[in-house]
């Protein structure tokens, strides 16, 4: 029920910002800008979907952006090697899946904290990307793929479809229930016969696969496969997930909330840039938004407790 309140909070904020931007910022409310805006959020949205599951299960995956980079590198490398793009894409997805699997194994089999593991693979996967593609930038990708990627239709349909799927999976199926239980108290979940390790493993795998999928879209959108594609995206994804109301301690969160958060961050960014707000302010606002989203409700609670306790004092 906490999640409910949260979603509505984010939604209100989102609407408010959109209204403000539409009225106050010229160049915001027109189809081409909106489609830019949506496109810009595609990769983050995709990775946020799987990240939500991971965080709800009280784990975290900081290696997503590096996985994305590695997949990009593989794509460029194989493309230069003359493989057909249709053959390369599934390979990239497999690479992502593999990256996720490695994280999953280290976390579940060795019981290592995911934060530590994925900080490691964060460096490892990015490094491998450099090893594979080195300093090249592969740009001569087929227009048949790059052009549609710059149109909002396909990415949006993809995000929407996967989004709905993920939401149902998390909120209406046994697996979802299990994920929440694991996040809230994995020992109890284990005692209830839930396959904690197996489920966690697959969550990481999914996370890797999503990163790879995102990498395809990103590469085609920018018509450029490089080892350093998507550097720093992991924080954006985590930020979106947290802003979306997912508890970093696991066991709490909602997918619609996260998707709205992704959108919110995208809109704010776009609107502020249009309004010629300096980049530093932009970072500042992002940070503020993140803190405020938790702070406001908490302060409310805090204040209420204070006031009641005062009248309690005899």
């Amino acid at each position, binding site marked *: 029920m906490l999640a409910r309140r949260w979603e509505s909070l984010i939604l209100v904020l989102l609407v408010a910002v959109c209204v403000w931007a539409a009225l106050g910022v010229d160049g915001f409310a027109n189809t081409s800008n909106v489609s830019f805006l949506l496109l810009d959020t595609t990769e983050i949205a995709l990775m946020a979907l799987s990240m939500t599951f991971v965080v709800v299960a009280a784990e975290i995956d900081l290696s997503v952006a590096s996985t994305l980079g590695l997949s990009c590198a593989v794509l460029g490398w194989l493309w230069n090697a003359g493989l057909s793009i249709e053959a390369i894409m599934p390979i990239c997805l497999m690479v992502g899946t593999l990256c996720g699997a490695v994280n999953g194994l280290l976390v579940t089999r*060795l*019981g290592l904290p995911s*934060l*530590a593991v994925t900080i490691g693979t964060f*460096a490892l996967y990015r*490094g491998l990307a450099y090893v594979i593609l080195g300093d090249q930038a592969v740009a001569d990708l087929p227009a048949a793929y790059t052009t549609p990627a710059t149109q909002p239709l396909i990415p949006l349909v993809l995000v929407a479809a996967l989004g709905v799927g993920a939401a149902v999976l998390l909120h209406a199926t046994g697996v979802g229930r299990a994920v929440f239980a694991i996040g809230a108290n994995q020992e109890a979940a284990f005692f209830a016969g839930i396959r904690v390790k197996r489920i966690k493993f697959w969550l990481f795998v999914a996370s890797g696969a999503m990163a790879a999928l995102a990498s395809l879209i990103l590469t085609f959108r920018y018509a450029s496969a490089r080892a350093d594609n998507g550097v720093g995206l992991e924080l954006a994804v985590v930020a979106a997930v947290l802003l979306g109301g997912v*508890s970093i301690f696991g066991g709490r969160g909602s997918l619609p909330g996260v998707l709205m958060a992704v959108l919110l961050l995208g809109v704010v960014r776009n609107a502020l840039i249009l309004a010629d707000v300096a980049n530093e302010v932009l970072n500042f606002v992002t940070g503020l938004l993140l*803190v405020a989203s938790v702070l406001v409700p908490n302060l409310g609670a*805090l204040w209420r407790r204070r006031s009641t306790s005062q009248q309690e004092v005899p």
Partner: protein
Amino acid sequence: MTALTEATRPGAGGRGLIDRLTRVRELGIVLALAALFGVTGAVNPSFLSVGSIRDILLNSAIVAMLAVGQTLVIVTRNVDLSISSIVGLTGFGGALVLADHPAVPIPVVIAGCVTLGAACGAINGLLVGMAKVPALVATLGTLYAFRGIDYAWAGGRQVNAADMPESFLALGSRSVLGVPLLALVTLTVLLAVGWMLRNLRSGRELYAIGSNPDAALLAGIRVRRRVMAAFVANGALAGLAGVMWAARFGTVDATVATGRELDVIAAVVVGGVAIFGGSGTVFGAALGALLLTGITSALAVLRVDALAQTAINGALLIAAIVLDRLLALRVAGTLRRRRYRDAR
């Protein structure tokens, strides 16, 4: 986090065993360090030369300082991602003052930076301790926010070595008895904090908080105050690290230390500090920092292909964590069997 399958239970006569176990935990890193220096030294003896060792100490001084601070926070089951931004802010601020107001005495500048850092820490502390914002969220936010302030302040300006007084830059390169000054500073802080964490009530209470926050409240520990203190201390150390950065690298702009937070957390974790709080020592964290910077230097010395360095770095980091974990599991196993024999 409660162990899933194996409930490790140090049994009767566990005293010696516990000691062994704790020793082993740091031993893991020490072994890794030995291996690193051994191998690298074998390939290229100059790596073990006095000069080289000094450079490595110097390089790790700052990360180690940050790792010590971070340990204080992580032990309380929190985390501070914003340190990199605090270092950036204080580092640039300090340099700017030195450049524009040469009149201001250096100790004042240093004190100022430490205070500024402590202030940033206090903001984190308020958010986490008082307003109950999860540390990761709060400090991810302030990570952006502090950096934003930094950028705004700098406005594209860069302070160069030439602009700062020699006497200040000298602090970055001076050695005392052959040991770099910065390394000594870090060492002093390390020993002091280490002693406090082990021997003072306040220190132990940090562990208690991290181990079970609710119980800590029931035990009458002033949780908020302690958490607050941890963040402030961490901020202050980050501030100090900022000055050290300026003194060491001479050229500073708004981007100083960007992204370093992950290195520091990595160091702390490699150092055997439980990411979920309650256990670990600053010494381990410092060793972790030494190991990571050692790796970077080693790769540079070993003529490893530049493109491969990041990858190897990551691989070794994981290897270190895994090694540490395997050792821990091993000890747990032997403990169980040992008690079995005792029970007979």
